[in-house]
Structure formats: structure tokens, C-alpha cells
């Protein structure tokens, strides 16, 4: 794979290419945990959602949650990946107080999902295909709190045993922009599938980032792994910093030590977690408490038959059926709720206008107030009615924006509001003519100027619109002005 020169990083000794692979941990959407009947609910009182299995009491045995298996298969299908009809759970052994078993149940040699791929639109307009190496199911650990006591740590096992999907990419990413776009796309697919809520603030999606650098064409460099980065923006910053750090070391004649590092968002830098090095000997072996996980192709086919339309298919359909640009379509499909809102508005109306309103006015306003589209004060029905009023030329485009603002803050039926507040566009030629006559009479010099410089007509249009309170039909104003001014 060759990298376009714009992605290379300039160093003192020439250009460098950064190579990135991501391990994304996505919390499976389920009511109960992977191997126990305790709740997965976020934010419970300490140790309120812990069964004796999660606390690793002697003699407790894990029993797998059927729904978590289905969610993993659905996700694999959404990533165009091979589903393994037989997979095996292994024990990954390490000691930490928030891991009461002394091992994490994970999948090592035989994961439930094999190779797949994700198509990613990078903001610069390029489309790249990122290989997925595997997806496996594993348990989350508990949470340690270190700042409550001078010499002790507090442990809450509520997360202990919650199902995670670890989604491992191939080292196919070549810039922080690509990595961010990949995680954004992955999150979008998971949210469409309903297999992970993608809530990064609650830790439902976090990534381990593997970064190495090389001169273009050289073999892969030594990599460092940045653990547990929990926002898309931080993933970008961590990569930028880590690539620069490695380049500086190499250009000064040093070499990279393969190690685990931590990203510090406050300082915007990565630093070594040296003490974790030895823990890398996980001594995996098959968990004797669990039989291999087996199902048949019919099971997979049944799940496949009920998958929702995914972002790539929806984007293609929007571009085709609504004649939208690739950019507009990809913005609209990024969130399922946005896509559904748009479809409701566009149905039976000018799709391009609907797309503009949803992408610009609505999304802009939602972002400004930090609201989700699901709690938009303007419903798809109300926005549709505003579009109808514009289409019928009952109101001008400018008034439509004012009306949107009124509906946003006060609610109500747009058509009734237009009647009640006298927002109707003035198409009465006589009324517009009277306004024009007044303005032309008051500005004879401008009227003279307009004959020589027709662009001055813009000033007159502005004056007429102003004096009509934005309600004059701009086309009618333009036509009448040209006649009156003799242009």
C-alpha cells in the first residue's frame, strides 16, 4: 500500500510514514453480563451489580449469555467478516485487584469473528479500506479508585464481567486522520447494529493504539502501544505525539523500545508504563470451565436476515434515490437517527432542500445547544411543513429561517404560525411597486448609478426586503426593480 505524500510527516532526515493499528474495545449492549446474570447498568452504587460469579467466589461457574454471542455475530456481519462457527474461550492470566478471578476470560487462538473490512471516508475526500484482523468476546474488569485514601485503593466490581468485543484492525492506517475516521465509522456501524452504544464518555468504546514509523518503502518499525484512549480526539492527538516522539528518537540515532505507553490528555503527550512490561506473559490456555462455542450457519443466516440497513448501503441508496452528493449522503447516514429524520422530511419533497435543512440549519442548531437529534425541538413533521411553505412560495427562504427559530423555541404548527404572525410572503405586485417607488424616489443618485452599474440593483433589493420585513418575494422584487430602474 502506498501512502499519498500529504500524509507523510516531515523530519530532519526526510519524510516519515506512520503506521497505525487499533484494538477497539466495545462494550456489548446487553442486559446481563457475559457469563453471569448481574446487570450491566452503568453508574450503579458500588458493587451493586455483582454476582458471586463476577466476584470469583470459589466454585462459581460461568454460563455464557446467548445475547452477547448474537451481538458479536451481528457485529462480525456488519464488518463484512468471516464468522467462525466454532470458537474457544481462553484464560488470560494476570494479577490486579479489579480482576478477582486472577484471569480474564477472553478468546485467543480461536475468536468468534475472523477477517473483515471497513470502508472509511477520510475528510480529505479519499476512501480507504481498513482490514479487520479479528473480533473476539471477553470480560471487562472492575474499576479501581486511587484518590479516596492515602494508602489504599477502592475497588468496585460493577463492570467486572461485562461483555466486551475487542475489534482488532490490521496495521492499515497511515495517519491520525485515517485513524479518527476509522473509529468514527466503526462507532457508526456498531450504533446502527445496536451492538454497542458507542458512548465514549461512559467508556463503552475505547482503543489501544499501536504506532510505529518508517521511511516510505522500509519494513515496519518497532511499535509502541498506547493503552486505553477514550475519545476520538485523543486518539488523534496520541498518534500525532507518539509519531513525532519516535521520529525524534530515530533521527537522533536512537532506537524505539517496544513498550506500553499511556496518553495524558492534559499534557497532550504519551509516557511509558514501564512496570506493566512483565505482565505481558499472560500464559493463555483454554478455559476448562467452558466448552467451545459452536453454532451452525443457519444461526448466522437468521441473524443476517434481521440486520438493519447499514451506513454504507444507506449512503448508496440516498445518493441514488435522492440524487444527493456523496458528501451530503455520508453526513446524513453517520447517525441512524439523523438518517431517519432526513428520510421523513424528504419524503414527497425536494430531497436536496431537505438535506440542506437537516445538515445546515438543524444540525447546526442542535450542535450549538449540545442536543441529540432524538430530542430535537423541531420534529421532522414541523420541518417538512416549513419546507412545504417555502415550496408553495407562501414564505421566503429568509422568513423560513425565522420561522424555524420560532418553532424551535416556541413549538407549534408552522402553517398556523405563518397565518397568526403575518409572515406570508408579499407577492402582491402593487404593494411591492409602492415600496420600490418610495425607495427610488428617496435615492435618485443611486437610481442613476444603477443604470451604469447594474450591480447596484443588489442594494435596492436589500432596501425593499428590509422595508417589507423580509416578506417580499425576492424574485418579484428583482423583476420589478429592473423594469423601474430601466436596466
Amino acid at each position, binding site marked *: 500500500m502506498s501512502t499519498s505524500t500529504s500524509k507523510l510527516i516531515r523530519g530532519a532526515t526526510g519524510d516519515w510514514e506512520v503506521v497505525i493499528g487499533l484494538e477497539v474495545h466495545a462494550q456489548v449492549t446487553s442486559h446481563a453480563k457475559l457469563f453471569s446474570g448481574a446487570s450491566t447498568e452503568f453508574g450503579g452504587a458500588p458493587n*451493586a451489580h*455483582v454476582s458471586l460469579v463476577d466476584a470469583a467466589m470459589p466454585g462459581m461457574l460461568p454460563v455464557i*449469555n446467548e445475547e452477547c454471542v448474537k451481538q458479536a455475530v451481528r457485529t462480525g456481519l456488519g464488518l463484512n467478516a468471516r464468522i467462525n462457527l466454532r470458537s474457544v474461550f481462553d484464560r488470560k492470566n494476570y494479577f490486579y485487584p479489579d480482576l478477582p478471578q486472577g484471569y480474564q476470560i477472553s478468546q485467543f487462538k480461536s475468536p468468534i469473528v475472523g477477517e473483515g473490512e471497513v470502508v472509511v471516508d477520510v475528510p480529505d475526500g479519499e476512501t480507504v479500506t481498513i482490514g479487520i484482523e479479528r473480533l473476539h468476546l471477553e470480560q471487562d474488569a472492575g474499576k479501581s479508585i*486511587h484518590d479516596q485514601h492515602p*494508602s489504599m485503593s477502592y475497588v468496585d466490581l460493577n463492570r467486572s464481567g461485562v461483555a466486551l468485543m475487542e475489534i482488532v484492525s490490521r496495521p492499515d492506517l497511515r495517519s491520525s486522520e485515517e485513524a479518527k475516521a476509522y473509529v468514527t465509522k466503526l462507532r457508526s456501524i456498531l450504533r446502527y447494529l445496536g451492538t454497542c452504544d458507542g458512548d465514549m464518555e461512559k467508556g463503552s468504546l475505547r482503543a489501544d493504539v499501536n504506532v510505529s514509523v518508517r521511511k516510505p518503502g522500509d519494513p515496519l518499525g518497532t511499535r509502541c502501544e498506547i493503552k486505553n484512549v477514550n475519545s476520538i480526539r485523543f486518539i488523534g492527538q496520541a498518534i500525532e505525539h507518539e509519531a513525532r516522539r519516535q521520529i525524534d528518537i530515530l533521527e537522533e540515532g536512537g532506537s524505539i523500545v517496544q513498550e506500553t505507553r499511556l496518553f495524558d490528555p492534559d499534557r497532550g503527550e504519551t509516557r511509558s508504563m514501564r512496570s506493566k512490561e512483565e505482565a505481558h506473559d499472560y500464559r493463555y490456555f483454554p478455559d476448562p470451565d467452558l466448552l*467451545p462455542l459452536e453454532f451452525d450457519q443457519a444461526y448466522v443466516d437468521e441473524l443476517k436476515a434481521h440486520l438493519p440497513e447499514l451506513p454504507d448501503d444507506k449512503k448508496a441508496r440516498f445518493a441514488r434515490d435522492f440524487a444527493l452528493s456523496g458528501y451530503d449522503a455520508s453526513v446524513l447516514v453517520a447517525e441512524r437517527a439523523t438518517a431517519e429524520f432526513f428520510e421523513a422530511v424528504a419524503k414527497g419533497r425536494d430531497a436536496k432542500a431537505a438535506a440542506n435543512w437537516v445538515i445546515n440549519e438543524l444540525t447546526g442548531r442542535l450542535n450549538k445547544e449540545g442536543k441529540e437529534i432524538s430530542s430535537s425541538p423541531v420534529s421532522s413533521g414541523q420541518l417538512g411543513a416549513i419546507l412545504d411553505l417555502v415550496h408553495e412560495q407562501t414564505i421566503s427562504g429568509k422568513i423560513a429561517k425565522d420561522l424555524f427559530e420560532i418553532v424551535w423555541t416556541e413549538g407549534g404548527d408552522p402553517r398556523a404560525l405563518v397565518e397568526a404572525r403575518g409572515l406570508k410572503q408579499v407577492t402582491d405586485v402593487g404593494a411591492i411597486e409602492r415600496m420600490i417607488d418610495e425607495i427610488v424616489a428617496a435615492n435618485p443618485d443611486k437610481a442613476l448609478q444603477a443604470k451604469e452599474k447594474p450591480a447596484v440593483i443588489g442594494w435596492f433589493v436589500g432596501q425593499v426586503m428590509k422595508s417589507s420585513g423580509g416578506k417580499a418575494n425576492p424574485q418579484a422584487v428583482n423583476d420589478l426593480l429592473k423594469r423601474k430602474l430601466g436596466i
Partner: protein
Amino acid sequence: MSVDAATVRRIAHLARIAVAEDEVEHLRGEINAILAFVEQLSEVDVAGVEPMTSVTPMRMRRRPDVVNAGGDPDAVLRNAPAREANFFVVPKVIE
């Protein structure tokens, strides 16, 4: 396959078992004896044989996605050497 003294110390550390220096040689002998015993299995030709995971041909049991456990922090914390406000309390583990 046999292990040396350094490997014995490393295995003990990974398992968080305190092993005194004068025990290492003895343990090395025991571990090597066990390994030699297990080593006999390699005499059997298992080419093309699937690893056996169960003596009965059974499918792994699965549970429905229903919350039917938890909600009893006292039961979970009953054996904890130290607790506070329903947290387990352990010696500080942060670096």
C-alpha cells in the same frame, strides 16, 4: 523440556507466590519431574486428531439475557478483609 532456577523464580512471581531462595532448587526438581511425566504424552502420535474438549458430546449451555443476580453487595463483600461504603479496600496499587 526442563526449567532452570530463573524460570522457577519467574513463574513464582507471575503467580504471586513468595518463594524463598533456598526453596528454588527443590521446586525446580519437582517441576522438572512433573514436566518429564507429562512429556510421555508426546510419544503418542496425534497428527490429525481434534483436541478433545469434553467426554460427552454436548453443546455449551447458554443463559438468556436476563438480570437475575447481583443487588446484594453484602454477600459479595462478606469475606473482604477491608471494606468501606461497599467498596473493597486494598493496598494502593497505582504507580
